[in-house]
């Protein structure tokens, strides 16, 4: 077995959420989500349709694609079968609600699966985030909502979100059959209406239950004998590293601050050298 990084473990878990006849919707620049879609297409979900915001288009992909920062829109357009608008993207989401899969990255997610990308903090000392964009609109409609959190920590996993954007399972508007998944660097978590609050679905190899408890800002039940996440296969790792993201653009979702800017500039130079 190959060694693998936490982001690769996450990408594989995300890809496994995609089913063969799904329509995968990609929102704003989210490299890990795009790698996961392409990986699923190249493995167990070859029939999946990909709808990319970059171009408001449907793309037809019959071989593993490479992701890009600099040429994201251009690479998508190369494979476009249809040029639409964002209104039409929404019309597709409404018509095909049951087969849509979309990976959302929340700034906060709580015990009940509510998410927040709007405001952090109460009263005066608030941090204004870029915004929820489409998450509050569509997430409660989907029977399956998948969130991903590259850094599982207490400030993300909170008892109650500071501001209610994407609704969890307790809300009346939510469909009762809804399943919310949260893929993190520590494990895969689930929220459904039956149980009402977040539970562990599986723990990644090498992660302890204590680590999860320490980094989660609410009580989370971890039954004995909980499932261990199936590690990535050699094929999956090979596809990620060699075909889909050989420059390791995905690491941008893990890094922060100065280190992230430095890595970003290096990646841009590499991409520039390969200008199509």
């Amino acid at each position, binding site marked *: 077995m190959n060694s693998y990084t936490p982001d690769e473990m996450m990408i594989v878990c995300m890809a496994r959420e995609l089913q063969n006849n799904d329509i995968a919707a990609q929102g*704003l*620049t989210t*490299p890990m989500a795009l790698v996961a879609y392409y990986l699923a297409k190249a493995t167990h979900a070859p029939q999946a349709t990909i709808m990319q*915001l*970059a*171009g*408001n288009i449907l793309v037809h992909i019959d071989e593993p694609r490479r992701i890009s*920062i*600099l*040429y994201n*829109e*251009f690479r998508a*357009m190369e494979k476009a079968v249809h*040029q*639409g*608008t*964002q*209104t039409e993207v*929404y019309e597709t989401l409404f018509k095909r609600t049951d087969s849509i899969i979309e990976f959302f990255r929340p700034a906060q997610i709580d015990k009940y699966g509510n998410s927040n990308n*709007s405001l952090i903090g109460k009263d005066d000392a*608030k*941090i*204004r*985030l*870029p*915004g*929820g*964009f*489409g*998450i*509050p*609109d*569509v997430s409660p409609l989907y029977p399956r909502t998948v969130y991903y959190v590259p850094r599982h920590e207490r400030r993300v996993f909170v008892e109650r979100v500071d*501001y*209610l*954007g*994407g*609704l969890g399972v307790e*809300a*009346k*508007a939510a469909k009762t059959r809804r399943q919310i998944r949260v893929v993190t660097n520590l494990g895969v978590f689930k929220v459904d209406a039956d149980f009402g609050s977040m539970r562990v679905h599986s723990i990644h190899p090498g992660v302890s239950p204590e680590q999860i408890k320490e980094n989660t800002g609410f009580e989370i039940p971890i039954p004995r004998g909980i499932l261990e996440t199936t590690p990535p296969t050699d094929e999956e790792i090979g596809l990620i590293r060699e075909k889909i993201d050989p420059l390791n653009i995905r690491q*941008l979702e893990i890094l922060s601050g100065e280190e992230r*800017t430095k890595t*970003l*500039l290096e990646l*841009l130079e590499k991409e*520039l050298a390969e200008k*199509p």
Partner: protein
Amino acid sequence: MSRKLVSSKEASKIIKDGMRVAVGGLTIHRKPMSLIHEVLRSGTKGLRVLTLGGGPDVDLLVAAGAVEGVEAAYVGFEILGFAPNFRKAAETGRIKFTEHTEYSIMAGLQATAFEAEFIPSKLLMGTDILKALGYKIFDSPITGEPLVAYPRIVPDVTLIHAQRADQYGNAQVEGVTAIDLLLAKASKKVILSAEKIVTTDEIMKVPSMTNLPSTFVDAVVECRYGAHPTSCYPYYTYDLWHMISYLESAKTGKIDEYLRRYITGLDSFESYLDEVGEESRKKIEMQR
């Protein structure tokens, strides 16, 4: 069809203090930056800016003090992170930020475009975003279920950058089309800048590509690299290097210097492109 080709300075006279100005494109894609620069040079104040996803357009307008309010579903630089001037102004209350979602913007514009007073829908019910929008909830006359009334959104002027257009404003928009066509339909006036002004014969070759017809357009301006530093498929990708240095200038308190050097201290967008330099443009150029 009447000819609408004017200079960007002439076109910007349509925009008056306090107007609700909608901006096309999305985040770091196909923003009408040359028109934004013209607004900044004209010294217009108190604008209320509306856009689906804001990026350098919103951040610059806020930095220059041209804006009183912002309405958007997202404001940021995507992979580059926060929009620093917007964020600071929203946090300190210097501007009024109205957080929308994609749906609340599209529904409001759809209502206007289709001559409805509002669009009734269940979406967003129960969220703090809807609470802050303050939209009315009423019982459906059909099912009795509670519904949100998404009221009309009517921009005074919409700014759009298209890939190509003729002198009448028959335009072709490609790549991230976002909600530009809907904005144009709902807006009282539309100023269009185009990367290339082409002949009407050229437009007639593939009429199905004309997704923004002249009937929705009031003024047309030609501007190459008119979306810089955002992208304009298929001609150039976004200038992330320029945006990184912009963000750096905001972080180090040098935003006024940036504004003078690149916008307010210059006489035209062409001078801005000279200041950016040919080498930088070469880097992002994809197709002439």
